[in-house]
């Protein structure tokens, strides 16, 4: 009987040992607010670029708030952050043609280029439980 038990245990251990290897980094959901001169940014795109290398994580800023959840959030570690205004679609577009939607779309919030091209904004995402909060206070004038 002990021989059979040994064989069974062996099979069980083999079965448990079959797992895949993934290239996915550890991630964490990141939320926060984005303001320009104290005013919440109506619509913008926010991108977290891991430094020095790694997969990008992106989210949308709506009415000053953002949440990066896709693929499980932002990879842990240091990031360079880019924030850029995006065109704001009309709230209700029922029955509109593409042309009408375009005509009703408002131009992006004028976020200065220094926050997008070669942005110096930084964020460090630390390991932990629950969402990580990072707030960004942008300023129009150069300092």
């Amino acid at each position, binding site marked *: *009987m002990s021989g*059979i038990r040994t*064989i*069974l245990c062996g*099979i*069980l251990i083999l*079965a448990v040992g*079959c797992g895949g290897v*993934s*290239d*996915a*980094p550890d991630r964490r959901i990141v939320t926060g607010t984005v303001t320009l001169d104290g005013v919440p940014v109506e619509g913008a*795109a926010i*991108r977290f*670029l*891991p430094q020095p*290398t*790694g*997969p*990008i*994580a*992106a*989210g*949308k800023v709506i009415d000053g708030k953002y949440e990066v*959840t*896709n*693929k*499980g959030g932002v990879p842990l570690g240091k990031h360079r952050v880019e924030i850029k205004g995006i*065109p704001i*679609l009309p709230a*209700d*577009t*029922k*029955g*509109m*043609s*593409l*042309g009408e*939607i*375009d*005509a009703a*779309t408002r*131009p992006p919030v004028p976020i200065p280029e220094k926050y997008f091209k070669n942005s110096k904004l930084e964020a460090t995402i630390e390991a932990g439980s629950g969402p990580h909060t990072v707030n960004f206070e942008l300023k129009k004038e150069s300092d």
Partner: protein
Amino acid sequence: MLQINVEKNKRGFTLIELLVVIAIIAILIALLLPAVQQAREAARRSTCKNNLKQVAIALHNYHDTHRTFPIGAAINGGCTGYSGSHMFSWGVHILPFIDQANLYNNLNFSGSTVFVPHNFSSSTCLTAVQPYLCPSNPQPNVVVNTAGTFAGALPDGMGRTDLGGVADSINWKCSTAGVRPTTRGNGVLYGISSVKFRDITDGTSNTLLVGEITGSRSPSGLNGNSYTGYDVFDTSNGINSIDTVPGGGTFAFRPQGFSSYHVGGCHFVLCDGAVRFISENIDQGTLSGISTRAGGEVVGEF
């Protein structure tokens, strides 16, 4: 009596031995079942790869015939005009090269809004074309737009597509307004593009040409992109990023970059005709580098 005694001495399996054998078989089946499911997905992925290869060959044949890659997408008036007529996308221009010459000949290229042709009917023209559809994508083959926020923006029944051209590494749209494709893309298929092989100085095996896109699985509201309109996107947000269902988001009006229902990434056609599966965890610098046709980046393995 003697015969019965012989029968009793015959060896057989005890109950315990039988149970052990059954248990081993059960464990083996339990191990195998997930593998069978993986095999199905692997087969779909393989079919998808084959579809993209057909499209790659079609694009190369187009280049051989017309001495340039097809126009990516466009609207009359470029970035400034809102109401100009749409032009057919690259997906329509390569139809004769993927055995769909009849579909192509049905089209009226001189209409004022060629995006939705005059003789449009879901049964006679612009039906779904098999190589443009990924078998892993659970969506219907046609654009469904019966209700929801963008009802009326695109008619029901136009052929859907799971492929989009790589227009730019930063933004496929004009930076100033709306949802018009830019005419200054640094990729290969962008607004009013006419890129030739000689323009791809980064090397054809280091430049993306076409990638996979997905749409919404919801039966109401605009559920995807048609291959007729401007079917080009950028790689600025990576793969399976915001607003894509595979990335864990909610589809919003238009695909916002490349994604697929194959777990972990999506397929891309490179300019040399190769089809590669690229991980959603690719380094963003590398992804930008292979999106541009003449950026001069030194890219590592991808």
